[in-house]
């Protein structure tokens, strides 16, 4: 690049970098700073630097237990999003056309447009004892069953899957749509039936989309706090609610910040560990 080109490129990149600095780097730095303090440096409070927040987290097994719980939650929500999202994406990409596809797309994207709190409370109405689900099932079945999913792990997973499913559907839709129809015809001409075509051809070709979707779901779900708190009740204490408590209830920002950074590190380590496999699958 010539000097002039470099200056022009810099000029074009500047807004993006400025935005990243303001929106990501500065808040993260502030959090990193907080995580090393003894007290929130507001008002008259005395504060000094310490690493006690981190040693506290590593020293107390409760935090590790909650982190493990959140990672498992992330795994299961991602799993169900993939299992449910793939058929949806397949139907959208390969089976529907025109108006019916548009309508279905709207339904998929609808969770994005609705307020998260409203969405979660609607699930509460559906899942609680004597709620919508309970009554619907009892209206159909001849014998009495008692369905009360409220304040349980399944309720949390249902709520989170509903919130994050669109990511998987959209990313998978894109990679499924890119599959050339003649590839499937070629496989059929060679005698392959649907299970094999799906396993050997469609899934491998859709893998980049599935992986992108999985990452988009896993990362925020591990840190989620609203769904666990509202749908999980006393089962709903997760690493995410723990962090939220530090900021909102206990007002221990330094510990909350330290917890956040440890979560960030753990998620990055998981993604880095998985990245060779992911990269291989994506090519």
């Amino acid at each position, binding site marked *: 690049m010539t000097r002039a080109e470099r200056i022009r490129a810099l000029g074009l990149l500047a807004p993006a970098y400025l935005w990243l600095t303001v929106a990501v780097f500065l808040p993260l730095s502030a959090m990193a700073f907080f995580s090393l303090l003894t007290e929130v440096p507001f008002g008259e409070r005395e504060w000094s630097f310490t690493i006690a927040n981190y040693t506290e987290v590593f020293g107390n097994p409760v935090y590790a237990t909650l982190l493990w719980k959140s990672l498992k939650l992330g795994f299961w929500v991602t799993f169900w999003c993939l299992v449910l999202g793939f058929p949806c994406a397949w139907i959208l990409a390969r089976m529907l056309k025109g108006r019916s596809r548009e309508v279905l797309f709207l339904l998929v994207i609808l969770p994005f447009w609705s307020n998260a709190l409203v969405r979660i409370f609607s699930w509460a109405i559906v899942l609680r004892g004597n709620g919508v689900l309970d009554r619907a099932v009892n209206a159909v079945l001849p014998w009495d069953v008692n369905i009360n999913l409220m304040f349980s792990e399944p309720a949390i997973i249902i709520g989170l899957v509903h919130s994050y499913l669109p990511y998987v559907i959209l990313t998978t839709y894109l990679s499924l749509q890119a599959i*050339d129809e*003649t*590839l499937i*015809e*070629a*496989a*059929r*001409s*060679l*005698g*392959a*039936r649907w299970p*094999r075509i799906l396993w*050997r*051809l469609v899934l*491998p*070709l859709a893998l980049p989309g599935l992986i992108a979707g999985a990452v988009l779901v896993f990362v925020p779900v591990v840190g989620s706090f609203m769904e666990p708190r509202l749908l999980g009740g006393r089962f709903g204490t997760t690493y995410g609610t723990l962090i939220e408590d530090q900021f909102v209830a206990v007002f221990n920002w330094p510990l909350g910040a330290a917890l956040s950074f440890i979560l960030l590190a753990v998620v990055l380590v998981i993604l880095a560990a998985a990245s060779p496999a992911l990269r291989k699958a994506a090519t």
Partner: protein
Amino acid sequence: MTEVRVEGLTKAYGPAKALDEVTLTFPDGGFFGLLGPSGSGKTTLLRAIAGFVTPDTGRIWLGDQAVERVPVEDREIGMVFQSYALFPNMTVAENVAFGLEVRRIPGPDRTRRVVEALDLVQLGGYGGRKPSELSGGQRQRVAMARAIVTRPRVLLLDEPLSALDRALRVDMQIELKRIQREVGITTIFVTHDQEEALTLSDRIGILRDGRLVREGTPRAVYDDPQDAFTARFLGEANVLTGLPEAGGLRLADGTLLPGVTTPAIALRPEALAFAVPPPDTPHRLQARLAQRIFSGATGTLVLDWQGQRLKLTASERDLLDLPAEGSPLWLHWPAAAALALRDAG
């Protein structure tokens, strides 16, 4: 070995008939070219034999099995697509092995057959590559190897060479013919390129608007097109029309061509000769030289006769002593070169 036969095959898309009562036999072990302009139904016919298109009426026989209701997966066909349709997530060897994997051929046998198939298409040693690392011609060969490795009853080629550039296409034509001869599988291929059809096929069928217009060996069809569409579609033709009389065909300029009993004839450009003084034959026309086109070894004369453009092609060294453009010129031909046509097209 398998003879393929379709009987009264009809397929309508709304009011338009893609196939209209097509009856045709594809001989066992032969190389059959299906030819026609776009929209003639040739691809629909191929896809009906493959099983991707279900005919409205009619029968399809692979050997002595009627297959109209047999799904694609069970027809034991091999197909090569215009876009090759190689599986991008698999290596060349895995692509070729796919059909064997489906048939649960055990590992060692499978490997041996894949190697054989790749050797046959002269791609031995390319097994470990991905399709994206191959050139167009090589992909074409892989597609061919993948289609024949399962020893299908019939090999269906859908415009197999049209994505290649011209020089490579000619090479691949020879290659395709060689491979087909070696494996001896009944082969049906679709093309809109008449030269390709003439080069490759043992027999050709010409389709127009879903109907089979003509069927036969390339030479028989070329030498006796019988109707103006076939004459123009297969090679180039000057079609002359007139009124049949007792003595022959009376043309618009009053010329009487003796011995012609049909309302039209076709003259191949290469069958024509020219002369400045009137030639001593009744098989002649007086035209005007409109244009002379040089194209390497052969040259073309474009002539104007009664407002119709006629073409004459000849070896370039036979076109040396020409009068100026615009001057009158006699065209003549041997009587046998006038191909009788039953219509004027």
